[in-house]
């Protein structure tokens, strides 16, 4: 019978190492290059085709006309958005972009509706 304690050397080594955890939120998390965070809308580029609305799996984006002609505004339901960035891929005008913003938690769902113009 072999002796138990295969983990002991590893445990002793770990005693002298830095902790494997990061101290988030004090230290910011590493954000990869093509991270899919909160979507940003560019009203200059949007032509109001609403393809993004049609492809969004969560019905989380709404494009509607403004007072000005041919200018559109966007409303995002951040509580429903699944951050898949399909709207970014679908938009023919590149009016939508993924940002690296991800700290969006809130106590109140209503506050998670965001208008972008």
């Amino acid at each position, binding site marked *: 019978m072999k002796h138990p304690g*295969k*983990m002991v050397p*590893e445990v002793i080594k770990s005693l002298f190492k830095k902790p*494997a955890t990061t101290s988030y939120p004090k230290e910011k998390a590493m954000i*990869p*290059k*093509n991270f*899919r965070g909160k979507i940003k809308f560019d009203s200059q580029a949007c032509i109001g085709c609403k393809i993004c609305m049609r492809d*969004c*799996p969560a019905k989380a984006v709404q494009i509607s006309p403004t007072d000005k002609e041919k200018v559109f505004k966007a409303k995002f339901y951040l509580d429903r958005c699944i951050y898949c960035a399909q709207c970014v891929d679908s938009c023919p005008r590149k009016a939508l972009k993924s940002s690296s913003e991800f700290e969006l938690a809130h106590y109140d769902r209503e506050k998670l509706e965001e208008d972008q113009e």
Partner: protein
Amino acid sequence: MAEIKVPMGPQHPALKEPESFNLILEGERIVDAEVKLGYNHRGIEKACESRSYIQSLYLTERVCGICSHTHSTAFIQAVEEIAKVEVPPRGQFIRGIIGELERVHSHLLWLGVAGHEVGFDTLFMYAWRDRELVMDLLALLSGNRVNYGINTVGGVRRDIDSEQTQQALKTLEQLTARTEYYIKVVTEEPTFIGRLLGVGKLSKEDAELYGAVGPTARGSGVSRDTRKDDPYGVYQHIQFNVITDQHADVLGRSIVRVFELLESYKMLKEMFEKLPEGPIAVKVPRKIPAGEAVSRNEAPRGENIHYVRSNGSEIPERVKIRAATLANLPSIRHMLRGGYLADFPIVIAAIDPCFSCTDRAIKVVQGKKSEIMDWGQLREYGINWYKKHRGIDLSRHQ
């Protein structure tokens, strides 16, 4: 000795998922077990049938948080077969890379859970610490740690550049070193072996009889792997061995999983090195021609089956998902019989269950006539049921 019935779940002490088992006990021994499904029905199939193909893709990805890529791959393979679309080789390879990385993360996660279930929490901590390496790699390649969103109809959404390849190869080396260490722990540590040897016995004949899949079957010596039996995507071009083990118990399943990790690293290295040039996706029209297809693939836990039927519109007419856990449940009952109550958590955990993957079908029968409900009616039924039986008003949460 008198038999007693002990209900386990739906809030399960060992699994953070809702599922219920009734154990018939004679003292410490389990005489029989009843598996009760249906606590977490999420209506995913029905939801797919009211969304377009591209929207359903993201929904199937969320069938499971751990093997999310395999579900979206199985679904998209079926759609591509109906639409007669050829995914470009580079797209196939990237899909394969994410698929194998997902297996690595899932097996390391499982190893940690297994350690936790048998009271070996040190193993749990270290396995999960090292799993971070592959999680970071997945984030680097796909953008996010879970639900990679890499698949799209006709290919993949993100390319891999040479810098990412370098980083990946470096991480793979670290992971190989770590895994070799865990192989030592799993095959040599007497406390671990002593706890798992002979627990949850499932002979080769029984594994075949009850239709076990994935590491559960392979741990009983059944060489069954969809990647080998029915090669899809990148697996037609890649060399690998199917790992089996003859222990036919929980230890066997653990050994299969740790050795599969090494096999995955080899495959990943080959895929990164052979990554062909060219486009990563082809354009596919929104409307998929009428037809039907069944697609299978090998998730970390075993074979997934997706069936898709199209009627020529933008929306699938029928989607049916069978995840690996459902295939393994009949063997669970068999494995529990004759075992001890204390082994129950690890026997269940050894199939790497995912119960939210399992709960699929629903049929509401009222009186003698059965009735088919649409999405809206089903929602309303649910809201009313909770109001009446639990006093919870869900109608506000639209």
